[in-house]
């Protein structure tokens, strides 16, 4: 149980000639919820994208070990099947691809990967019915094309709904709270809390403290200019709320 689910060591990455991540170190163990906070442009979403496997970024140094395996060697679909889930900041609309069809195909890929039998349409519907309720999503969601015509809040809830169906070992939530009203935020948080188990872990990436009122992290990290400049417990988030990021940045500059 002590092996980390995710171990990031000295991760450097960027696009073309621009360095974005400049030596990230982070270990996430089973049962833990970590929050990464930081101002715009600090590299938060880059980190999320690299974990999910978007090929727009070059990793120049360091490694990411997921459950003992080299994560960066895997294709995005392999990562997903191994249990990595990214809730997108901006989920894309995919016209013509039916939500049920899409999600059942995804789930069955996961099941095949684990050597489990695939679910037929009826079995799948039974499974997802309760999850739809958990996220307070409209009943016809599954009949609609993926994210097409969804409100911003529905898109975010749909991400957590997919997460509930796929049951990841490591969930990365990229600014899932942005653009949500307080009710939607509560629903999303409830979803995430319900899915928490001793053998999985969550990485919350957020700009604001308010999500952390509803999902209580075990650790909070502050990302600034591509590095984690401070880590602490949940009280760090409150301190940030009070003092803003400037306090830490000055601290960092003084130290450096």
């Amino acid at each position, binding site marked *: 149980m002590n092996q980390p689910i995710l171990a990031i060591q000295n991760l450097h990455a960027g696009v073309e000639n621009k360095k974005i991540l400049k030596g990230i170190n982070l270990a996430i163990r089973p049962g833990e919820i970590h929050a990464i906070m930081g101002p715009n442009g600090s590299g938060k979403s880059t980190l999320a994208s690299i974990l999910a496997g*978007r090929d727009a970024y070059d990793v120049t140094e360091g490694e990411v070990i997921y459950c003992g395996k080299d994560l960066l060697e895997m294709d995005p679909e392999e990562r*997903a099947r191994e249990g990595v889930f990214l809730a*997108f900041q901006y989920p894309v609309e995919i016209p*013509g691809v039916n939500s049920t069809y*899409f999600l059942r*195909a995804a789930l069955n890929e996961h099941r095949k990967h684990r050597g489990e039998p695939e679910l037929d349409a009826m079995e799948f519907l039974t499974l997802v019915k309760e999850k739809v309720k958990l996220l307070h999503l409209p009943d016809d969601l599954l009949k609609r094309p*993926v994210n097409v015509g969804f409100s911003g809040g529905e898109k975010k809830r749909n991400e957590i709904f997919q997460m509930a169906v796929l049951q990841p070992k490591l969930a990365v939530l990229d600014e899932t709270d942005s653009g949500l009203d307080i009710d939607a935020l509560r629903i999303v948080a409830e979803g995430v809390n319900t899915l928490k188990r001793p053998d999985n872990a969550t990485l919350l990436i957020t700009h604001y403290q308010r999500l952390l009122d509803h999902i209580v992290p075990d650790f909070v990290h502050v990302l600034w200019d591509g590095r984690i400049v401070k880590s602490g417990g949940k009280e760090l988030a409150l301190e940030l709320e009070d003092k803003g990021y400037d306090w830490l940045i000055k601290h960092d500059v003084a130290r450096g």
Partner: protein
Amino acid sequence: MTAIPSNPDAKRVEPYVKAFERFEQAGARQQPPWLFPLRKAGIARFAELGFPTLKHEDWRFTNVAPIAKLPFRPVYDPARIPNREVLDQFPLATMAGPRFVFVDGIYAAELSSNPALPDGVKACSLTQALTTEAALIEKYLGRCVRTEDNAFAALNNAFFQDGGFVYVSAGRSVPEPVQFLFVNTGREVGATIHPRNLIIVEPGAKATVIESYVSLGNAGTATFTNAVTEFFLGDQSTVEHCKLQDESLGAFHIASLHSRVGRAVNFSSHSVAVGAKLSRNNIRTTLDGEGIEAILNGVYLTGGDQLADHYMVVDHAKANCASHEYFNGILAGRSKGVFHGRILVRPDAQKTDAKQTNKNLLLSDDATADAKPQLEIYADDVKCTHGATVGQLNEESIYYLRSRGIGLETARRMLIHAFAGEIIDRVKHDGLREELDALVWDRLEQQESVAVGKGT
């Protein structure tokens, strides 16, 4: 004797004129005498027009010189009749309803299924209808097809042998789709068939009509199918039509679909073009009454060196009509898709709502798409839009699907399928829609470039 006008194509049309003389001497195959003027006018018009070339504005993107170079061998008798079981392999084979089968353009009664139809509904081969419904046919046949700028329709007028006939009298409806299946046996190079379909739907009546064009085997013999379908749609009728073109990769296929549409008609016509080396659908719809809703909808799926061309003219002659055209092309290999849509809004056609969309998905670097939308508007209170796009699969969508565990190839297929699905989903008849969906899915699976994203 038919005079051959002196035009640069005179030599090229000569074999056609000679063939017509022989056809005429053979009593034009024992058809009623009133047909002769139509046929003679047809060959005269063809001789005058000759084959179009790339210099013709309407044929800029589609070179029919390979058709003109073929020996002209009109088929008057079927080469061989395939077994009934062979027909089961073709798309739409399991659909319920009457099915009339034509082998090399000639009606094959033994392969057809002809269940009893409700009173007031007739469906049979055109040849048979010429004996039983002569007066009706005389009133309609050739009255809608326009040949002044369509040499192929003129050629069909001259040589047509057989095809499908549907008549639905006022207020009646056909319970199941009527299907006309044209089987090309690929008998020899230049074998030419001229299918001719006539659909008459009287006021308030309802019908679903399917034309499908297939080949035996995939021998790739350079044959030529030159079809004409005429629709006469009475006021307030509801008609769904589907044309499936799935001929062998050696075949040339030209079809003209001309319709005259009455007041408050609901007409949807779907085209699915997946076969042939070169195919072209000339669709000309005249909206000749108020309150019509017309949907022209199509998907073409090509690979290798195939070319699929849809050319259409929607003529808004009366006020308060809506016409919507949606055509999606999925192009792999070195293939080419052509879309040419002209919307004509006449001075009386106020409150016209005309929309035209052509979207192309290029699956290889060598595939090309040509789109030419054209609006010609003489009324001042209208809403007309058109748009054409050419592009690749959306990378963000692929990444999203992959991030959920769906493999790259499956993700690509899902998106391509979705692109075709936008069109297929407009088919209202459930059974037909499901069959077409399965067909397109099956063909996409066979496209190598769907998987690797490179030309075949």
